[in-house]
């Protein structure tokens, strides 16, 4: 039965135009960005070269599909979460707003099953969306700009050879998906509390912006609470490009993110099961 319910939810999600907005945005934006890089991004390139030229002799362009993907993955802070929230925020609340709870919750299916089906469908949408993001950035970027060694600037300079970069990107997108699942679950939780599709987006977005501010502004009090806030772990994908890969750190980050996911899910379930359907 759960499989059927998930199928239903997938049909509902992809039947709505708003669910396709994110795909459309990426389908337009990514080629534009890649085209822009192919035409020359002098400012960004100069920044890179300036940091590298003390140690390296740069011949030609440092830009390739890998580097462009690495740069565009910074969309993962705010832009991609927003596009995922468009769906996650509506998946439960939208039924309340449109009154369709009155035709699904009167059937011989428990609310728990319905909510879990919605949650899994939201996760599937999130995964599909990140895969599409990967295709549009890494896939298109590689085809358009070619591939080569990946230069990563973090606390130092790391040059990953081409054959290693593919694996690292696969890992980075996997971590990115996990972070986006936290975002989707947060928004889903708000969605299970209200009966309009906008409130959950505003609620979740506000929390993310505040969380990112706390994680990034170097104030003593913020630095103390930062380890307990999930937005502090939004950069987990970047660790896929460290050498060696800090698996222990990644494991710890994953534990924190998983804890948040579980808390959000439990709150969603309790809210939804107790909720009076009055719309």
């Amino acid at each position: 039965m759960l499989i059927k319910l998930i199928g239903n939810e997938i049909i509902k999600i992809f039947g709505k135009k708003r669910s396709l907005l994110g795909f459309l945005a990426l389908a337009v934006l990514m080629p534009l960005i890649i085209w822009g890089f192919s035409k020359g991004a002098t400012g960004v390139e100069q920044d890179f070269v300036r940091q590298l030229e003390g140690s390296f002799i740069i011949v030609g362009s440092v830009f390739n599909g890998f580097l462009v993907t690495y740069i565009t993955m910074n969309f993962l802070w705010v832009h991609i979460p927003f596009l995922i929230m468009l769906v996650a925020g509506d998946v439960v609340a939208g039924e309340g707003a449109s009154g369709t709870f009155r035709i699904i919750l009167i059937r011989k299916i428990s609310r728990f099953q319905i909510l879990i089906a919605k949650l899994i469908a939201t996760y599937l949408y999130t995964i599909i969306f990140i895969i599409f993001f990967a295709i549009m950035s890494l896939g298109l970027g590689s085809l358009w700009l070619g591939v080569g060694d990946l230069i990563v600037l973090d606390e130092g300079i790391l040059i990953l050879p081409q054959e290693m970069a593919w694996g690292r990107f696969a890992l980075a997108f996997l971590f990115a998906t996990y972070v986006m699942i936290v975002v989707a679950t947060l928004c889903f939780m708000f969605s299970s509390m209200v009966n309009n599709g906008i409130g959950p987006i505003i609620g979740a977005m506000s929390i993310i912006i505040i969380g990112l501010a706390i994680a990034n502004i170097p104030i003593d009090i913020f630095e103390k609470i930062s380890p307990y806030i999930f937005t502090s772990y939004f950069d987990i994908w970047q660790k896929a490009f460290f050498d060696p890969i800090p698996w222990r750190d990644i494991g710890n980050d994953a534990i924190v993110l998983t804890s948040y996911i579980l808390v959000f899910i439990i709150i969603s379930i309790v809210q939804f099961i107790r909720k009076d359907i009055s719309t």
Partner: protein
Amino acid sequence: MSEVILSIKNLSKSFGKRKAVDNLSFEIKEGEIFGFLGPNGAGKSTAIRSMLALIKPDEGDIAIFDKSVRKLKNSALEHVGALVERPDFYEYLSARRNLSLLAAMDNVSKKRVEEVLKIVGLADRGDDKVKAFSQGMKQRLGIAQALLSNPKLLILDEPTNGLDPRGMKEVRDLIRKLSQDGITILLSSHILHEVEQVCTSMAIINLGKLIKIGSVHDLLNESDSSITEIKAEPLEKVKKILESLNYISDIAESDGTFKIRIANKDLKHITRELIKADIDVSAIIPRTSLEDYFLSLTGDSI
């Protein structure tokens, strides 16, 4: 003796300080078309939502087929189909797709989707998106989704809302047909005429409380006064006589027909009085209606 299909005991539900349903109890027996009557805001929809586990009552028990809705929601609702208030659907999907989604939840075949579309007369519009449907078509689709699981109990909350007279008649005919097919029906309505026409028994509620319950026939007979129509001439003389009779009240004349309110026990006197006064009487028609009865119970609340 017929089996009790639905039993409500001491149901209460408040929203904030407002008590929407107040200690409501009644039973519906197998085969009945049970009218659930009350003015807007009487608590009908709250009671129905409680029956269907959409809202949780503060107090009381609801059992459907002897299974508690609170404790065994899934099995209690296994043989129940319902249309609650407006028929809302996924407007961006076709009628057929909407029903297919619900059929998957009811674990019934695609064939059943076609059957219910045919029953409600939407088979040829099944591929149209619901957003293109008129209110009447949505209402019929609402009944179709309620029928999907081959229910033994059908709960219809204001199913003729927003329909034109023809649509209303179609829905009423459909309800009668479904009843003949053995489905027990709870019909919630604020349209007295509808309940009077379709239902075999009824409960009247107002301000969340049960006011009256019984068969429609018994309740109508219980009414101690009625509106009676009199067709007689000459009009002026008739009016003068009617006004002189102290057991008559609320005299109104329209298109040569008088409408009067008169106690049932006094009805037999009126003919004698008019004949005695040499009036040409062509008709005296008692029009006892549920509406009169309802108004006598609830005052001017409708």
